[in-house]
């Protein structure tokens, strides 16, 4: 009897702390679940937005790369050699010529800028990828000088050029038999290099060109000295036309929005 009483009192004492102990009950559980679900949904929305804004746009960069490569390639109508653009061809660049140059980029909007000005633009470019290349723009001018054969038979051109056009006027008793460029024979004909009875060019590339004038290719890496060998009295004159190039450096920026 007494022990049962003691046990009951002990149970009451432990029972007495149970009322103040917080335990999981249904309303709090429901609120916690709702809160967790809300936070999870918001985080997933945030992550989706971050992933969407970090989209790398490979199509844009691919098209821009392809167009830039074609613009600076060595064998197009736009370039004189690799990374060197012809200024006269460059000023004529427009959307149609761009299409012909890069047929694979027809579906994309492209803008080509050289230096500070926009050369060609096709479509609306909002925000695509930009690829920049360093190029030289070359502008060929032509200059001429006349050599009097009775006073001198060699002349050194002051500017480097890659080809030379000769206009030989000799007296009736004089023929120019050999033309040398830097000690290399470029034109040779026993009856005169300008005569119509045979080809004068030594390597097949020089000689009378389509417009009926003599054209000689020389190296653009070194200064050219032309020397003429005449037979006969040695009077006459030669007008030498050479084409020095002036190059400026710019940056071509191609923006593509596929």
């Amino acid at each position, binding site marked *: 009897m007494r022990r049962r009483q003691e046990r009951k009192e002990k*149970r*009451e*004492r432990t*029972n*007495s*702390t*149970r*009322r*103040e*102990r*917080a*335990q*999981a*009950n249904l309303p*709090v*559980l429901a*609120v*916690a*679940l709702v*809160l*967790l679900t809300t*936070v*999870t949904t*918001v*985080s997933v929305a*945030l*992550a989706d937005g*971050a*992933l969407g804004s*970090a989209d*790398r746009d490979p199509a844009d*960069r691919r098209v821009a*790369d392809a167009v*830039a490569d074609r613009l*600076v390639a060595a064998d197009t109508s736009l370039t004189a*050699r*690799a*990374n*060197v653009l012809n200024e006269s061809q460059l000023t004529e660049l427009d959307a149609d010529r761009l299409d012909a140059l890069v047929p694979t980029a027809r579906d994309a909007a492209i803008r080509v800028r050289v230096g500070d000005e926009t050369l060609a633009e096709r479509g609306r470019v909002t925000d695509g*990828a930009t*690829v*920049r*290349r*360093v*190029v*030289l723009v070359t502008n060929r001018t032509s200059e001429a000088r006349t050599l009097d054969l009775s006073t001198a038979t060699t002349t050194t051109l002051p500017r*480097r050029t890659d080809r030379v056009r000769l206009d030989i006027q000799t007296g009736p008793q004089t023929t120019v038999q050999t033309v040398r460029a830097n000690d290399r024979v470029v034109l040779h004909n026993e009856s005169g290099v300008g005569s119509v009875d045979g080809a004068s060019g030594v390597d097949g590339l020089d000689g009378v060109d389509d417009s009926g004038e003599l054209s000689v290719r020389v190296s*653009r*890496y*070194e200064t050219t000295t032309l020397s003429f060998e005449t037979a006969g009295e040695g009077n006459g004159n030669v007008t030498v036309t050479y084409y020095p190039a002036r190059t400026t*450096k710019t*940056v071509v920026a191609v923006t593509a929005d596929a």
Partner: protein
Amino acid sequence: MRERGVSTPTRERGQLSLSAIEAAIGVVLILGVAAGFGLGLPQPETQAAQLDAYATDATTVLSSEPPRHGGATRLSEVTRSAESFERERDALERRVGRILPENLMYRLQTDHGSVGYPRPAGVPVGHSTVTTLHGEVTIWVWYV
């Protein structure tokens, strides 16, 4: 009969609801993951490709330039011997500085020496190598 939760308290003790603790831990974990997304994803590596294009352009332009005095091209003149490298070194540095855009720094290395700035570590660097008659010429470019 025993009734649960009904008795006289011996002393007051404040305790937290277990559900609240669990919910708070869960929220903190999820917000930690979201913060990782919010801080930003890594940028795509476009800088290295653009720098490589710049370096290739520089070597292409240099390798087809006429020389200042003698030799086949400017690069072969520079790499021909140590004396010609020393002689042409300043002109080469000026020329490369003019070819490349203003926001780039470069280092050009030949068999006889180098011109340019020291190469940094930890930034994207583009490079290109071209072979001349007397050795290789390598250029590294990076953004300032």
